[in-house]
């Protein structure tokens, strides 16, 4: 009987086995990592908008309050996008014929809405309400990030269930006083914990009752 395989064959076979195992493990880790990646949570994406609206300019530099445009935020589930007329309250006075604002004027004259691209969108089976969060002392910044530094708006936080549930388990770290709800870059004063507890108590937050399914899914 003669050798069927050359000595090298062993090396190859073992390499093959080791490689296979490595690939398997690596693949698993890779897939899970990909699911958490910025790509999948679309936090890396700055969609083009019909009008290159800059929150940095309006909210940051001019310091317009969020609620001026997103008027529904305290009254309903949806913060709402501003109607064209809201834009025109100022832009009928200033930058009246800036080319950049042509779509806005078009919208008003032709009664056609501006087709914005939604940046913050949750799946249909998630029933999120802005009003209750705002009323209970969760600031805009908590979910939307430093909007006042965004020339083009993007999704600052990954809107995964983990993200929501973390806060629903313990809202404390994200609570702020009423007057600072829309404030950006709001720093908590020295006696943070006490103050947060005070807010929590004052708002009567139902700790431990915010993590069951029907709070968000119906």
């Amino acid at each position: 009987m003669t050798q069927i395989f050359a000595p090298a064959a062993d090396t190859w076979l073992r390499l093959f086995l080791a490689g296979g195992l490595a690939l398997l493990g690596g693949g698993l880790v890779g897939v899970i990592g990909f699911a958490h990646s910025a790509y999948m949570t679309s936090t890396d994406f700055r969609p083009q908008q019909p009008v290159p609206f800059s929150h940095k300019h309006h909210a940051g530099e001019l310091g317009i309050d969020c609620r001026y445009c997103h008027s529904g935020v305290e009254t309903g589930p949806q913060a709402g996008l501003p109607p064209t007329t809201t834009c025109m309250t100022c832009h009928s006075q200033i930058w009246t014929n800036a080319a950049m604002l042509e779509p806005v004027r078009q919208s008003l004259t032709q009664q056609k809405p501006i087709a914005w691209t939604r940046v913050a969108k949750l799946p249909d089976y998630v029933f999120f309400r802005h009003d209750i969060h705002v009323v209970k002392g969760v600031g805009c910044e908590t979910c939307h990030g430093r909007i006042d530094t965004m020339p083009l708006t993007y999704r600052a936080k990954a809107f995964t269930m983990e993200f929501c549930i973390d806060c629903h388990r313990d809202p404390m770290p994200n609570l702020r006083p009423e007057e600072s709800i829309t404030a950006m870059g709001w720093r908590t004063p020295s006696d943070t914990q006490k103050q947060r507890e005070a807010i929590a108590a004052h708002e009567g937050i139902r700790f431990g009752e915010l993590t069951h399914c029907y709070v968000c899914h119906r």
Partner: protein
Amino acid sequence: MAAEAYGLLAEFGSPEALLKAAREARGAGYRRLDAFTPFPVEGLSLALRLARPGVSWIGLIGGFAGAAVALLMQVYVNYDYPLDVGGRPVYAISAFAVVTFELTILFSALSMIAAMLWQNGLPRLNHPVFAGRRFHLASKDRYFLCVQSDDQAFDPQQTAAFLRRSGALSVELIPP
């Protein structure tokens, strides 16, 4: 010396002949011995003074590992997001028993078989003995005794003669 051969391969017609030869070889002071048989032959490892295999211990460890992994996993997921499931306890050990048992067995069995292959140095596709002309009979109905060349007492001529004396049907020098 040892460089030019792997060893001498002696062929025997029955397990009994092989056993006899193996004992004689030990008696003659050969230590680097190995035998090849078509099925496990009782007393052979004794005759060759092989160490008791330690596969069972690895199996035991694997079993404990499996149980631990299973229990920790199940306890952790319920600790991470405790949900009220039909009023059952959050850490329902009785319910966790099944998966724990399954993983115990899985880990134990796999670890033993892996250990067996590892200790046997398998897979090994190319091995000197395969070069033996009549070695293919080792998986049929012949029984081989191999004296390796790295044995102190190994000497191609004398060892071959010794093996023939102890009843080998054929003796062959295996190249390295």
